[in-house]
Structures are given as C-alpha cells and as structure tokens.
C-alpha cells in the first residue's frame, strides 16, 4: 500500500472535524427543542469518513443510522444535510426523508430506518453494477447489533455468491441501544462471520482513520477488480448515548470508566497528532481547518433555519413515480 497523499489525509481530517462539529450542532439544536433523531458519531468519526474517502465519486454508499459521516464523507453539503434533518424543502430529500438521507448525484442510496434492511439492497446494487458492466463499488455500513439480523446473513450470502462489488463495514461500538453486545451476540469478532460466506474478514482499529482508509482501499480495490465482497469490522465506541435521549446516560448501562477510557482514543485527536507527527500538517494549518469548519456549520444552521418548509402538496407527492 503506497503512502496516503496529503490531499487525502487533509480531506479526511477536515471531514472528521466537519462531522464532529455538525454532530455537536445537532445536539445543540435538539437541546433547543428542535426534533431531530441523531445517533451521534462522537468517537466514531474515523471509519465512516476514512472509508468514504477511499471511494471514487461514482461509487455508491449504502448508509445506516449511526450519524452522518457517510454523507459528509461522500461530499454532502452540511447545509443540505441539516435542512433535510429539519424537514426543510431545501434538504436532500425535499424534507420528506428526514433521517433517511439520500442523494442521487452523490450516490448515497438512502438510509432505511429498519435495521439491516439495506444490506440485501446493497447486494442488489452490487449485482446491478456487475450486470451493467460498470466498475463501481458499494460501501455498506452496519452496526454490531444489526449484524444479528437475518437480512445481514441473506445479504452477505447474496453478495458473496454473486461476487458483487460490495464492501461491508461493521462498526462495532460494543452496544446496541442500551444492550452490551456480549448479551446478544454470539461472537466477539463480527469479522469471524466472514468465513461463513467465504469472504475475507478484517478487524481494524475503528478509531484510527489511517487504518480505516487503508483497509477500505484494499477491500474496494478487491471489489472493483471482481474478487467480491469483504467484511471489515471496525472496533470503536460511541461516546454519547444511543440518541440524544440518553446522550449522557453513562451510568445506567455502561461504566463511566469505560467511556473515559475511550475518550482517550479520540479519533479526531489521534489523526491530528499523527498528521503533525509525520509532518503532513502544522498545528496552524489544522487550526485553520477547524476554524473554517465551525464557520461553515454556523452558516449551515443559518441556511437550514431560514429555509422554507415544503408545502402540504409537496409532502403528499412522490408516493408513486408518475413517469
């Protein structure tokens, strides 16, 4: 694997910061009484951002409920994203999709609310790419909890049988809602399940963006060259609760020490330090990115707040495709 270019690394860093600042902003909006269901990615920024950075523009992403890293990583403007979350007509789904973020041009294929429903859909996107003799790849995310759904099994088997160009990334953050995964999941390493489909399974440090980029790139190359799917398991942790509902609910179902321990592995900080260490960027350069991003997200807030809601007519439209 050749060294990662500066541009790429800085893009990853700035998208991770963008995601973090965006996430914080949404939490503030929620506190102010605006109803948005956010599954915070605080602590999980690395994998989603790094893996999407390894994609080509025409590649597809099949997202899941945890956060918005796949959207930001795929190039979605925070303005458009926030507008959608606030139900505005300027949102990427015209204010109807809400959390179910999708974008045709960015090839973000829609984020179902039913856990694991998107995994067979991703396999089908892969099949379609193959049948159309295109060279694209689909990146499909899911969580450790969702990995126990039947659809994951069916979807992974289909993708494997078809040698479809799909890269599965399971972000294992140790919990599903309020339940530690040892209570519900029969293996410690979800990656072990790859063997059941005859595909490679890789475990990476989910808080290390560089590891995430490298593993994704390798799997994407493999998929693009017709060798079929890979399952990557990224070991990580969500610093906040499942949603804003239990944002700081640390004591109830997980020990504070555990959270503190993972705080130390902050992926944004980690990448920042690494970039300086390898002299890819100076503190000043990175501070500038941080600062710009904050402004950008403030603007996004302004834009979203000022955007109009869709009309009732718009809301009731598009149940069927009329064309």
């Amino acid at each position, binding site marked *: 694997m050749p060294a990662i270019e500066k541009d790429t690394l800085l893009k990853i860093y700035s998208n991770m910061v963008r995601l973090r600042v965006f996430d914080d902003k949404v939490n503030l909006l929620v506190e102010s009484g*605006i*109803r*948005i*269901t956010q599954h915070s990615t605080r602590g999980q920024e690395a994998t989603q951002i790094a893996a999407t950075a390894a994609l080509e523009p025409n590649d597809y992403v099949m997202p899941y409920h945890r956060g918005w890293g796949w959207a930001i990583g795929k190039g979605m403007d925070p303005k458009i994203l926030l507008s959608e979350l*606030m*139900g505005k007509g300027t949102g990427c789904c015209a*204010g*109807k*999709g*809400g*959390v*179910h973020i999708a974008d045709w041009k960015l090839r973000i294929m829609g984020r*179902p*609310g*039913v*856990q*694991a429903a998107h995994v067979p859909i991703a396999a089908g996107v892969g099949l379609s790419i193959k049948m159309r003799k295109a060279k694209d790849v689909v990146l499909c995310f899911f969580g450790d*909890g*969702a990995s*126990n*759904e*039947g*659809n994951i099994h069916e979807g992974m088997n289909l993708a494997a049988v078809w040698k479809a160009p799909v890269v599965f990334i399971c972000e294992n953050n140790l919990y*599903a*809602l*309020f*339940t530690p995964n040892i*209570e*519900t*999941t029969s293996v410690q390493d979800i990656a072990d399940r790859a063997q059941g489909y005859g595909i490679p399974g890789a475990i990476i440090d989910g808080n290390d963006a560089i590891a995430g980029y490298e593993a994704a790139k390798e799997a994407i190359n493999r998929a693009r060259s017709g060798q079929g799917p890979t399952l990557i398991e990224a070991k990580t942790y969500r610093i906040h609760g499942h949603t804003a*509902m239990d944002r700081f609910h640390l004591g*109830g*179902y997980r020990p504070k020490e555990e959270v503190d321990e993972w705080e130390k592995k902050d992926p944004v900080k980690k990448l920042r330090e690494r970039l300086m260490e390898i002299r890819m960027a100076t503190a000043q350069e990175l501070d500038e990115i941080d600062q710009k991003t904050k402004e950008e997200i403030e603007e996004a807030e302004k834009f979203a707040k000022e955007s109009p*809601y*869709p009309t*009732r007519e718009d*809301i*009731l439209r598009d*149940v069927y495709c009329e064309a």
Partner: protein
Amino acid sequence: MAAREMTYAEALREALREEMARDERVIIMGEDVKINVWTVTRDLHKEFGDRVINCPLSESGFSGAGVGAALTGMRPVVEIMYHDFTLYAADSIANQAAKYRYMCGGGDFKVPIVFRVAGGGSSGGSGCHHGQSLEATFIHFPGLKVIFPSNPYDAKGLLKTAIRDNNPVVFFEHKLCYPIKGAVPAGDYTVPIGKAEVKREGKDVTIVSYAYILHKALKAADQLAEEGIEAEVIDLRTLRPVDTECILKSVQKTSKLVTAEEGTKMGGVGAEIAAIVAEEGLQYLDAPIKRVAAAEWIIASSAYADQMGIPQVEDIARAVKELF
C-alpha cells in the same frame, strides 16, 4: 380495589409485573427490555432476573423463539419495538404462532404467547419506518387474537387477559398513548378480549375507533355536540375477534357510521367494520358509511410534516358532518 392515576405505560408495566409475580412461566423477551425505550418493561429484570431477556436485533428470530418457548411450557411476552418491524416477524407471528396448534392437530399443542407490538403511530418525525400503524395487517389471520387498547385501564386489564390466554395474541400499542393518564385499580382485574366499549353515548351517529385516534374521535364528538350532533363513540379495544354486536346495536340506534383509524384506509380496520355493517346492519343505515384514515401517502419523516397525512380531530368532525 383502589384506583390510582397512572399512565398507559405504567399500567402495562403493572400488568406485566403482576402476571410475572403470579405465574413464573411468564417471561419477557425483546430488544432492550431491561431499560426499554418505552419504559414498559424497565427494571423488571431487577425483580425477575433471567426472566427478562434482552434479545439480539432479530425480530423474526426471537418471535419464533417465543413460539418455541410457548409450546413447551413458558408464557412469553415478546416486545417488537415498533409496528413497522412486525414485517420482519410476520412469518413467526402469522405463519407460525397463528397456525402451530392447528397444524399439529390441536391437543396439547398450544401457543400462549403475547406479541407486544410497541411504539405504533406517527409522532415527532418518527417517519415511515418508525411510525406506521400496522394492526390491520394482522386481523387477516385466523389463529391470532388482536388487541389495541386506548387507555391505561384497558391496557392493564387486556394485557393480563392476553397473557392468560392460551392463544397467540398480538397486542398493539401506540407511542402517543404511553403518557396518557387514567385511573387504574391496584391489583388484579381483567378486561375481556372481544368486547368493545361505548365510551360516549349518542343518538345521531356512531363513530367506531380505537387506540390513540379514539381520543381524537372523542374530541370530535365534543365539538359536534356543540353543533347539536350527538355522536356515540365506540372503542373497539379488540380488533380480532371484533365485537360485532356492540357496533350493530349502536348503528341500529344512530343509523350512521363513521370509522376512524390512524393506519391507511385500503384494507384497513375501518374497511372490515364497514363491511360488517354493510353485511349485517345495512337496514339500519340512513346515510353512507364514512371511513376516516391516513392519506394515500408514505409517512413523512419530519416533525413538521408527519401529521399531514394522519387524520385529525377536524377530519373526523368533518366526516360526521358530511352525513347530515
């Protein structure tokens, strides 16, 4: 029995707690049932230990496992977190639980299981994957009983009855019902399956409803009363078997029928009620039947817009007035 004010969620919890204390075969299964987003099963594991089982995300699987446990001596109460996810568990509920006894020739084979289908209805932008009302889907399957209570009293009494029933019961709940308060007797009482209740008497029109929208129907009735129309409002409570007698008796008196439900209209519960009356009570009617139900839409995942296709008090009142 003293009655206290408590919420629908608390009433459900009390029913579970009392039944678990009464019968050690009663167990709870589902996702996050220990802390529980709906609070209905919260902390029961502190009292009942291993009898409260946090299941993996696998609605089909743990619903099926519930059937296996029910067949062999347990009485599981399985929570499915939202109505929407019953479509994952549909085979376990409607093909397995519903048919198992018959398929095995009856006798000792029985499936005393309750599927608590939680969190129904649209609210706060819950959207098309967390906001449907899917009770109508399950009334189509013989072998099942289907319940959908509107208030704390019924919630407790019907859940107890459901747990004691030796048949699979699909017990629907609504997210906006959970915080509704009402008087609930302490200790044991039951509400029978299959009996509707007249919540408001009236002579001019019958409104048949249930669940959360029943409360909108009652408000509509109040508004209508101000305009001189006295609506009789029926709370179905049980959707399968449905209390045909109660409905017919009311329509005989009022000669007019409006149904009100939150789910979509086509193939909805209102269709069944309308059909029953058109079959067995047509002679009583002096006006067309009206069905009030969700629009032909997909629920917008937007706190701003998610009520736009859901019937409101005014829609019910308007439907009634169109009959006069």
